């Protein structure tokens, strides 16, 4: 059973990769299994300079989900290129770098820096982080800003660019079209939905940043719907994510139109979730009558 899936600039042995921000730069999960088993690895967001992120608490648990407001903490793109990415060289797995910023200039700066690295295979343009005051999500909710930043990043990059969309919009197709028009090679969807939990004892939001991004199985129906809608409207490669924790979930995303998938929150519950899903995938595909991963892509459309 072939698990291979082809996306612009990426030829993946299987469609399953950890999602950005949920896997660091790979090191911490490397004792648990051989990272070469992964289809790809989405590493943590990089910004132009080091960012300390938001105050703690940064996470909360919700029904079938979690909130996070890490605030893009990272050592800055140069340190990431020097100190983090080389570790992943020893694995036979494409690395997708996640590009974040507050301004178009910062996005371009990060892109240019990453463009010099030989340790990555693609960029994921994160215009959807809801947890930082400046930048991030406003690029992801305004089609013209999204278009502009995509265009500029595309211009600065020799690597394929996947634009990561925010679900906090009325019209996801409009956003997808805007970035596709600007030359995006593919889409990553979805990032988290903005949410909040209030601590009854302390009478204030649990997350110090007040709001955080909702992820996990709770949001899966929203992810599936958005991917389905975009796939109906556009012919563009999609890396799907949002609440995946089983091989059946992966198949649901493939049917909705994803060409590959990313697993985020589920890694925290089960560090072995990615290899377990990859292991289960052939029998699940077979059970539902598919010959290969590529055979299933988009087949949920009627």
């Amino acid at each position, binding site marked *: 059973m072939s698990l291979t899936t082809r996306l612009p600039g990426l030829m993946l042995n299987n469609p399953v990769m950890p999602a950005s921000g949920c*896997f660091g730069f790979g090191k911490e999960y490397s004792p648990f299994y051989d990272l070469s088993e992964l289809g790809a690895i989405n590493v943590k967001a990089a910004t132009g300079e080091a960012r300390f992120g938001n*105050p703690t608490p940064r996470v909360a648990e919700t029904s079938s989900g979690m909130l996070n407001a*890490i605030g893009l*903490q990272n050592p800055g793109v140069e340190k990431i290129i020097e100190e983090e990415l080389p570790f992943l060289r020893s694995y036979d797995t494409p690395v997708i770098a996640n590009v974040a910023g507050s301004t178009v200039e910062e996005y371009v700066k990060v892109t240019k820096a990453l463009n010099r690295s030989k340790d990555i295979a693609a960029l994921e343009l994160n215009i959807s982080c809801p947890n930082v005051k400046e930048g991030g999500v406003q690029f992801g909710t305004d089609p013209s800003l999204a278009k502009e930043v995509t265009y500029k990043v595309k211009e600065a990059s020799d690597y394929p660019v996947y634009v990561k969309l925010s679900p906090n919009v009325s019209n996801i197709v409009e956003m997808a079209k805007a970035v596709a028009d600007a030359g995006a090679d593919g889409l990553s969807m979805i990032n988290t939905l903005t949410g909040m939990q209030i601590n009854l004892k302390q009478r204030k939001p649990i997350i110090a940043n007040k709001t955080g991004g909702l992820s996990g199985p709770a949001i899966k129906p929203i992810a599936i719907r958005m991917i389905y809608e975009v796939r109906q409207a556009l012919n563009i490669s999609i890396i799907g994510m949002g609440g995946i924790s089983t091989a059946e979930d992966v198949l649901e995303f493939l049917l909705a139109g994803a060409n590959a998938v990313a697993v985020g929150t589920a890694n925290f519950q089960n560090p072995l979730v990615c290899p377990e899903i990859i292991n289960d995938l052939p029998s699940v595909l077979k059970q539902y009558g598919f010959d290969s991963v590529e055979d299933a892509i988009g087949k949920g459309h009627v």
Partner: protein
Amino acid sequence: MITKQLLKINSHMQIAEDTFEVVVQSPLAKELKPGQFVHIALPNHMLRRPVSVAGIDTQAETFTIIFKIFGEGTRELSKYQAGDTLDVILPCGTYYPIDQLAIDQALIVGGGIGVPPLYYLAKTLKENGVKVTSVLGFQSKDQIFYEEKFQVLGDTYIATNDGSYGTKGFVTDIIDEINPTFDYFFSCGPTPMLKAVSHQLAGYNGYISLEERMGCGVGTCYACVVPLKQDPKQSKKICKDGPVFSANEVILS
């Protein structure tokens, strides 16, 4: 090496109000050092719960945890029984670096659910020939556990917030009162207590163990950071670089 295991519960019993002691079978038990924690999955909960190791039995290949019912997850954990299976990531985090320290006398300062890891620590120190003085704080008499076990290891003083047992007040009141001598102090408990203790013992060498809400528990998600005194723009991860820190290394908030 850190790993995920399905482990059998050997015994599960209540030892104080809302407080449970659980003995878990694991071939890795002997690798668990004082200060380290295990990260426990619970059905129908997205996030694991970090719980400190309160002791190990090398022969029996078991480790002990002690937890108090705090919210939904610990309530669920309280319903487990001997024979049930726990999904655990272990060993997690750093430990009290006692092998690298020259200690003759140690002061142990624990509060509430910060007490369990300190029992394992105190026991190990004692085994290493260190004289141990323990100062433990609890909310009330009904919540006290392991008093006798600490007494076996050395002088032990108890404070309760409501005065229902021992000294009424805080661990810092006892420290003021007994004025102990020690080379190093080791503390674990709620952050306000850690702040008070670190302040009170500012001139001494010591180690503290921190708590924070965690995502991954293994160092990937940056949920559990604590800023460093040296440079507040720098931080360490409590789950991986901690939970044990040198008392003057981090900024408590």
